């Protein structure tokens, strides 16, 4: 029984770390402060997050994390940061990205 809580804690830590890396990369590519990025951040609230910058963002995530974003997903990611993060996390979780592979290795 003692192993179960420990696994959960590691899982939560890994997820938090991944969220933080996505947030930092997002902020870096948009050239804004990571502190200004939260789940409610949306294009209407960040002047830099226009349609051209969005595609630069998506392209930057693809390059940095080794993932491939489908066109429909790229459209969905323009909703808010929570959606953007979820889609990136899903891709990394499916083992299709550099960080995902690294996290999987770490978890093993």
């Amino acid at each position: 029984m003692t192993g179960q809580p420990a696994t959960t804690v590691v899982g939560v830590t890994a997820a938090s770390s991944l969220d933080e890396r996505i947030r930092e990369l997002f902020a870096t590519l948009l050239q804004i402060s990571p502190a200004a990025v939260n789940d409610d951040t949306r294009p209407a609230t960040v002047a830099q997050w226009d349609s051209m910058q969005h595609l630069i963002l998506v392209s930057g995530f693809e390059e940095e994390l080794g993932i491939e974003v489908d066109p429909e997903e790229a459209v969905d990611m323009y909703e808010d940061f929570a959606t953007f993060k979820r889609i990136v996390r899903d891709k990394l979780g499916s083992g299709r990205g550099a960080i995902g592979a690294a996290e999987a290795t770490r978890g093993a």
Partner: protein
Amino acid sequence: MAKSVFKGVRIRGVAGAVPAGKVNNLTDHRFCTEDERKKIVALTKVGGYRKARKGMTASDLCQAAAESLLEGLNTSPEDIDAIVFTTMTPDYRVPSTACLLQDRLKCRTTIAAYDVNMGCSGFMVGLYNACALIKGAGLKRVLLLAGDTQTKLCHDQDKNVVFLLGDGGTATLLEADPAAEDIVIELLTDGSRFNNLYVPAGGFRCESTASTREVREQADGGLRSDENLYMNGMEIFKFSATDVVKSIAEFMEAERIAPTDVGALFLHQANGFMNEKISRKLKVPDARVPYTIGFYGNTGSASIPLTMAHHFSTVGQPTSQRTVFSGFGVGLSWGVATTVLDGVYSPPVVELA
């Protein structure tokens, strides 16, 4: 459904012409930082494009392309039965520029000549018209001219469009030929979304006034007047990434064309990032998707035939090549076509000073 099979129509040749004036996206557009310019070029793959000087129009470019094509094919302008000119940048609001081109190209007066007001789907709509004139009206030879000088529609500090849109003109000669492979064309339209890509004022719905000509920073951060081209980038990306991809995929399935059957996929040259997404979604190998967007940009109705002309004049004429085309843009209007291209003549792209 506006899907038609045209039997007995051959694409004999295609030629392109571009202005000599060049825009370099990395070194021009100083209203953006160097870092921004580099990122936009890396994304869109548009390193630069051609820009028509003042007084040069799409019809000038199409005329140059047509003269080069007819001379190379040893075809007299007097043998042309119709001119179809697709453009959103005509010489005059009235009349159809095709009428002027009849005279400038020295064609007979006993021909049909008219404009089709279309942008990035212009080649698809024009091809449909040209094929219908040959098969439906019994004409022998139709000259399809497709060209735009979109730089004249854009404000030169509107980041949303000024890195993408260039100028170009083309001429495609179609002929009646019973031995030709079928040309299948499907056209689609959704006018409910027209205002995602349009010029809001200066027409007859919203006439030109001092206010509509006033340049100001717009809600999307772009600098332009209401008489400049407006593009809702994300909605157009969404349209291209979903509706257009779906239409091409369904068309290919209906025509029983597997991705590996495609010898060449000529897409409207929208932007590099988007076009790569589209071709990968369709699973057509990159090597079979010719691009000219890197040096001509997005040239509106000219982009597909200009890419064909550049491609065939540099790598050689196609031989029994299963070809798929798709143009998409203002309207919203889009189309998909296929045929087997064989021996399409293309002279080198003309540079007009």
